[in-house]
């Protein structure tokens, strides 16, 4: 019996978010019949989609966004609890499944956890979920007492009837509250009344991370499960030609060798090591295809040609930059380049699938449960109501586990060849390095114009390189233009540039090599901030001005940008002498709705061949700060991610494939290199959309360090990583 509508490919294309930030969805989300409200795991009815309250007053808060270390579940719980008035000590959280969400018309909203939007894009409806539940709980108590709800208040899960002093608890009235109609028009608190939002609440998810108890996707065990590991064609666009399973079928523990789609082959065994050993021994023939001729040098040449190409998409323009350059008394020009980068989250890609002809279940660490669901539906070939996805907390995501669900598709395709047996697909680190969704490659030529009085009269910034959207969500392109390419450089909005330049042209010559691009923490602000903020330092130097003064003169119309810059300059002691041998640099940007700035103090050793980063002061204005302690941890962590890239990381292409294989060739900084990070969290409030936290600051560390390196040595480095210049991180 199947009364459900068939899967509609166009059922649910969520694509309007192109201007909204880092990640935007473009997959088709299949329709599914509406079902009854979801009971909590132990069968207790919900108050509403967000809140379940158990008889012992335990509060279960449900949320769609994924926890990958960034603290989003704690922050979202703070938002709910602020309005729910329950006891924080009794709060737990759970994930609704994407299948439930689809069945309930996406009642939990967007599952996508990227673009630093876990909190900023959901705070209103999540707070409303808490407020509505509180209203229903109070109403249920009032009904029980036969008094008006207006005479009752709730605090810490206790409801009090003010005139009589009678009390009851949430747990006691929850069953009655669950039966009430959902009230309309509940009012949210004024931010001035907040007592939990804005406080450094302890994370809800720490305890099991220190004792080995926490189960990640890679740790999952199901009865009778096999472990698979996979090799995809090393050259993207190539195909699997053949493999000789007989050569490995006799090896211990090996159960099956299967093709996966047209491009990959997997070995299934009783343990990972046995699967990997057999896969390494398996003779495989690839048809690598045309892309096998591509090298990094060829890509670089192609991008270089784009720096002067006549046609380009315009991302931001005012005045007449070309005329200003033509009439300049003095011109300054520089070319920068930023490489491909792998996300390399600590937990390699994995997914576990159990397929039978009438059901497909998938367990997966994912930044986007709905994208995983869509991939599982497509790969299984089953109708949506026969598919379910269970989200697992991630061992890091950084953008790799959002829109790209290649590992889910693979796991399902493998499990289909082993019906009834759960299969955990776990990639090797080498597979992860070779089959990433890489930070896009980009070059940039900047030309600045000065008049005879050393006033900046114009700037042309030409980007040449890869578009993420063109590859991933082409439906989000704006007449062919990828607006995300211009993150941090927009005329206004979440990624607004912080300078007013009389004649400005920022444009992009789009060039898309075959290497698959993706959303890498911070996305395009990583390179744009280096390009703009290092070049502004070059312009300041050409004008003989202090880098801070030079910037501030261009920032009169951008008070919030200037405020974060001023904050870091003051804290680092800009304008006052630094310790002997210590040099400073600055950078700022607005990204994902937050204003961020950094000031770095470095010294150079070994004749400029090593940089010691002593201290970075970072300011963040997210407008509203939900958990300042977690923001500080995200900021210092983002610098580890960003500085590791600056000093060590690039993915190069040879014979069409990525050359780096593991952390020996794609290094990541260690504790010895960690600078002291001082965070200034300075929420300025207001009515603009809230800013995000996970990504914005990542972009300001690198240019601040590079500008300090120039101050120390007089050398401008314009291509990355620094190891290619023989510069180490001391």
């Amino acid at each position, binding site marked *: 019996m199947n009364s459900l509508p068939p899967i509609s490919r166009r059922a649910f294309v969520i694509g309007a978010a192109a201007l909204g930030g880092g990640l935007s969805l473009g997959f088709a989300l299949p329709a599914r019949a509406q079902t009854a409200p979801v009971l909590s795991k132990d069968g207790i009815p919900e108050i509403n989609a967000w809140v379940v309250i158990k008889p012992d007053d335990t509060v279960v808060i449900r949320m769609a966004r994924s926890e990958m270390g960034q*603290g989003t579940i704690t922050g979202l719980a703070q938002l709910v609890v602020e309005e729910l008035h329950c006891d924080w000590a009794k709060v737990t959280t759970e994930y609704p499944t994407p299948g439930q969400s689809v069945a309930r018309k996406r009642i939990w909203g967007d599952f996508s956890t990227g673009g630093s939007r876990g909190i900023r894009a959901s705070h209103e409806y999540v707070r409303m979920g808490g407020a509505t539940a509180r209203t229903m709980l109070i109403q249920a108590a009032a009904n029980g007492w036969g008094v008006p709800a207006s005479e009752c208040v709730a605090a810490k899960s206790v409801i009090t009837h003010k005139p009589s002093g009678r009390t009851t608890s949430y747990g006691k009235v929850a069953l009655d509250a669950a039966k009430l109609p959902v009230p309309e028009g509940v009012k949210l608190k004024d931010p001035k009344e907040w007592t939990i939002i804005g406080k450094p609440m302890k994370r809800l998810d720490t305890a099991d991370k*220190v004792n080995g108890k926490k189960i990640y996707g890679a740790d999952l065990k199901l009865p009778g499960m096999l472990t698979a590991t996979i090799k995809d064609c090393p050259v993207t666009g190539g195909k699997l030609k053949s493999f000789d399973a007989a050569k490995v079928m006799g090896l211990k523990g090996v159960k099956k060798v299967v093709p996966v789609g047209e491009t990959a082959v997997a070995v299934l065994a009783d343990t990972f090591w046995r699967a990997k050993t057999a896969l390494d021994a398996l003779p495989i023939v690839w048809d690598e295809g045309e892309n096998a001729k591509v090298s990094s040098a060829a890509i670089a040449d192609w991008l270089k040609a784009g720096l002067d190409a006549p046609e380009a998409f315009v991302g931001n323009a005012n005045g007449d930059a070309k005329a200003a350059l033509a009439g300049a008394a003095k011109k300054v020009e520089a070319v920068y380049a930023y490489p491909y980068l792998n996300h390399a*989250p600590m937990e390699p890609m994995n997914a576990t699938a159990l397929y039978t002809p009438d059901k497909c279940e998938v367990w997966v660490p994912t930044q986007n449960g709905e994208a995983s669901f869509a991939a599982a539906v497509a790969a299984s070939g089953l109708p949506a109501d026969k598919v379910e996805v269970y989200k697992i907390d991630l061992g890091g995501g950084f953008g790799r586990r959002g829109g790209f669900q290649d590992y889910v598709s693979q796991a399902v395709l493998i499990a289909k060849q082993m019906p009834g047996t759960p299969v955990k697909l776990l990639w090797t*680190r080498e597979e992860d390095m070779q089959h990433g969704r890489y930070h896009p490659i980009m070059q940039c030529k900047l030309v600045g114009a000065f008049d005879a009085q050393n006033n900046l009269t114009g700037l042309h910034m030409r980007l040449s390189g890869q578009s993420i959207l063109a590859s991933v969500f082409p439906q989000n392109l704006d007449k062919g233009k990828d607006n995300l390419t211009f993150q941090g450089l927009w005329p206004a909005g979440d990624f607004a540039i912080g300078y007013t330049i009389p004649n400005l042209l920022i444009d992009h010559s789009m060039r898309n090599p075959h290497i698959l691009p993706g959303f890498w923490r911070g996305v395009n602000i990583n390179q744009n901030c280096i390009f703009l903020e290092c070049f502004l330092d070059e312009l300041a130097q050409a004008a003989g001005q202090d880098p801070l003064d030079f910037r501030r003169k261009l920032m009169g119309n951008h008070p919030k940008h200037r405020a974060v810059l001023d904050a870091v300059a003051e804290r680092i002691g800009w304008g006052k002498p630094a310790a002997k041998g210590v040099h400073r640099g600055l950078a700022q940007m607005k990204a994902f709705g937050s204003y961020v700035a950094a000031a770095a103090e470095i010294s150079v050793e070994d004749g400029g061949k090593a940089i010691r980063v002593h201290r970075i002061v970072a300011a963040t204005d997210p407008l509203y700060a939900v958990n300042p302690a977690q923001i500080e941890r995200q900021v210092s962590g983002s610098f580890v991610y960003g500085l590791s890239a600056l000093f060590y990381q690039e993915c190069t292409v040879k014979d069409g494939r990525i050359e780096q294989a593991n952390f020996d060739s794609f290094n990541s900084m260690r504790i010895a290199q960690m600078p002291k*990070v001082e965070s200034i969290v300075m929420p300025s409030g207001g009515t603009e959309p809230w800013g995000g936290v996970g990504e914005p600051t990542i972009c300001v560390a690198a240019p601040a360090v590079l500008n300090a390196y120039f101050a120390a040595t007089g050398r401008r480095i314009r291509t990355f990583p620094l190891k290619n210049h023989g510069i180490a991180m001391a």
Partner: protein
Amino acid sequence: MARLTINGKTHDIDVEPDTPLLWAIRDHIGLTGTKYGCGIGECGSCTVHIDGQAVRSCSVPVGAALGKAITTIEGLAVNGVLHKLQQAWIQHDVPQCGYCQSGMLMALAALVAKTPRPTDAEIDKAITNICRCGTFQQVRDAVHNATRA
């Protein structure tokens, strides 16, 4: 067959002696707190103690661990009492995603066993674990707080 002693308990498992200890611990014995991050000794996610020494279990064959006392993150607490570093980790909310933290804690526990109050320089020298979430600042603060109290 191989006999391994892990967290004080003896396990007889059917495993090839050249299998990395990491996979014997995870897949044959079923203790999954010890993580796979790189498999080549670079990241430290797989750190365990062998006779009190911190080692990267992905790079030690089972055959080399026979007859030795192996401790994993699951055995770091003694009689249900968390190690002081585990307590400090909770107090400081050190873990972000947490995936690297078993290895981080095991590496640091071995350090403080020998060097009860490590200086920054001693931490820097001994601890070369990768943490992609970048928890180093919190790690350092928590170690100092736990050992200088």
